[in-house]
């Protein structure tokens, strides 16, 4: 695995630790405002300074990791599972299931701007973390289904599958113990890139006011609060801290995904 992927892995591990132990790492109460300590620059008391209402930015960035990771993990797990099952069934059985899935659902969903659909759904459902997760799952599973279907179609024709069939193995056994383990690799890559996408989507929607409602320390909300002119002039670090956090997290998952793809598919290594 290359160095960038290693960086990604280390950063993600660090992020998980930060999210798990946020109460011990944070130096201040995330919600505590202090109008006497607004727009403070980074100092030994406030490591990353304070925002427009005097809240400690470092603590908020630390807690923000929880929201980002939670959305990422839930969205990837749920949409991944749905996508794997639907894609595997469509690829394995073919027929009318496949005609509906690949002929209609994949074509339609992939011809549609996913973020816009998520925005539209949350706009009608009302803002909130769970609704946001629901919207991201609804748009997210299609990508996994497409990858999985392609993989199953390929693996299905391999000799060992034919051999298992000749030995009288049942469909579900062939599917779960022979095809799935051999078809799962690109899904892992997709999941890593999907984490990046989900983190980004959560921040985007929260930035637009459609995600986690404001006092919550979502990185997207923090950016939205820090981008007005008064804060930009007096405390640009209030925008930089969550911005860098989002960028590094997305970058880490993208690095990991790219690295995994290269690692799992040696033909790509020369490029």
């Amino acid at each position: 695995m290359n160095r960038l992927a290693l960086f990604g892995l280390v950063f993600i591990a660090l992020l998980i630790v930060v999210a798990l132990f946020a109460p011990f790492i944070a130096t201040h109460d995330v919600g505590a405002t202090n109008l006497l300590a607004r727009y403070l620059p980074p100092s030994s008391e406030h490591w990353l300074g304070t925002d427009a209402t005097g809240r400690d930015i470092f603590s908020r960035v630390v807690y923000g990791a929880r929201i980002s990771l939670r959305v990422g993990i839930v969205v990837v797990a749920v949409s991944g599972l749905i996508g794997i099952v639907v894609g595997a069934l469509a690829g394995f059985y073919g027929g009318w299931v496949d005609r509906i899935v690949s002929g209609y659902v994949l074509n339609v969903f992939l011809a549609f701007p996913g973020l816009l659909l998520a925005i539209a759904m949350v706009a009608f459902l009302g803002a909130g973390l769970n609704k946001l997760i629901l919207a991201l799952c609804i748009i997210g599973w299609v990508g996994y289904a497409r990858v999985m279907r392609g993989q199953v179609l390929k693996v299905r024709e391999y000799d060992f599958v034919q051999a298992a069939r000749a030995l009288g193995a049942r469909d579900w056994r062939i599917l779960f113990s022979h095809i799935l383990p051999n078809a799962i690799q690109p899904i892992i890559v997709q999941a890593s890139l999907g984490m990046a996408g989900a983190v980004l989507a959560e921040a985007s929607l929260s930035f637009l006011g459609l995600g986690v409602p404001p006092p919550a320390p979502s990185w997207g909300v923090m950016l939205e609060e820090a981008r007005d002119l008064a804060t930009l002039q007096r405390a640009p670090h209030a925008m930089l801290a969550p911005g860098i956090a989002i960028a590094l997290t997305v970058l880490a998952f993208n690095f990991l995904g790219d690295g995994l793809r290269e690692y799992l598919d040696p033909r790509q290594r020369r490029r």
Partner: protein
Amino acid sequence: MKHKLLDILRRLLILLLVVWTVVSLVTLLIELVPGDPAVAILGEQATPEALEQFREKHGLDRPAFFVTYSEDKSGERRLRWNGAENRYVDYWRGILRGDMGRSFRTDRPVVDLILSRYGATIELALAALLVAVAIAVPLGVMAGKNRGTLMDNSLSVIALIGISLPSFVVGPLLIYIFAVWLNLLPVSGREGPSNLILPALTLGSALSALLTRMVRSSVIEEMGEDYVRTARAKGLSERKVVYKHVLKNGLIPVVTILGLQLGVLLAGAIITEKIFNWPGLGLLLVDDGINKRDYRIVQGCVLVISVTYIFANTLTDILYRKLDPRIRVS
């Protein structure tokens, strides 16, 4: 010839299916609103008459779909067949006549609102596309030509960073640098050409990073082809080989990405427009639609952005086939 015709027909069918799905989704999305949209707009204190009037005016008193599962007069919940007299059909009828209903708040026709903003969004998306190409083609060629060198590697890392930087990080950063710190460019609005620079840079930056990678791998692939050797053998300068021969072929896959990304740009423009207060469709969607819960505006904006996106994709697909004869055969 027959195959070609069938292929075009198939594509047209998919296009129609996608548009049908989008319109249906948009039409039915309004049913997701928790509670009564009329109450959401007029408030809890509104009189029953006012609510009734509002519902009637916007057709909200009609059943939602062909079949509904609702309470009848005896208070029992049951499936009901409503025939063609329902909101789903109403919305379709409207669209076919070029009518997307009226704004819940201002009563202005949604079509007028959208038309007044459409130009600004297209202007922004095209400017961003231009920015992306202007950055990506020279950088991609440079990286591809000098493959494996330090320059190539650092350009690749920069490109990956660029892809990972969301517009709502790039935008405020650019505002801070160019508007607050250097005081060179305006912060927001759409008064003159200088207003376009920062939004276009913001929207185009991620795309330029993606394109740089595309151009690079495309150049690398083409450099290995026979015609490059021929061109070199007949004594053309390296510059001519790259810019006249390699780039011409190497840009074909890039065109596809560009077209596909035009749609992504349109969707991404929502956030960029919000950051820079750029009066396009995205701002209409967020400020007038979502924030004021004016669902008719949301429906119209989502519909128009999606359909533009879908048509941009289809157009790209056709263009791509025209450009590369190898694809036409298969």
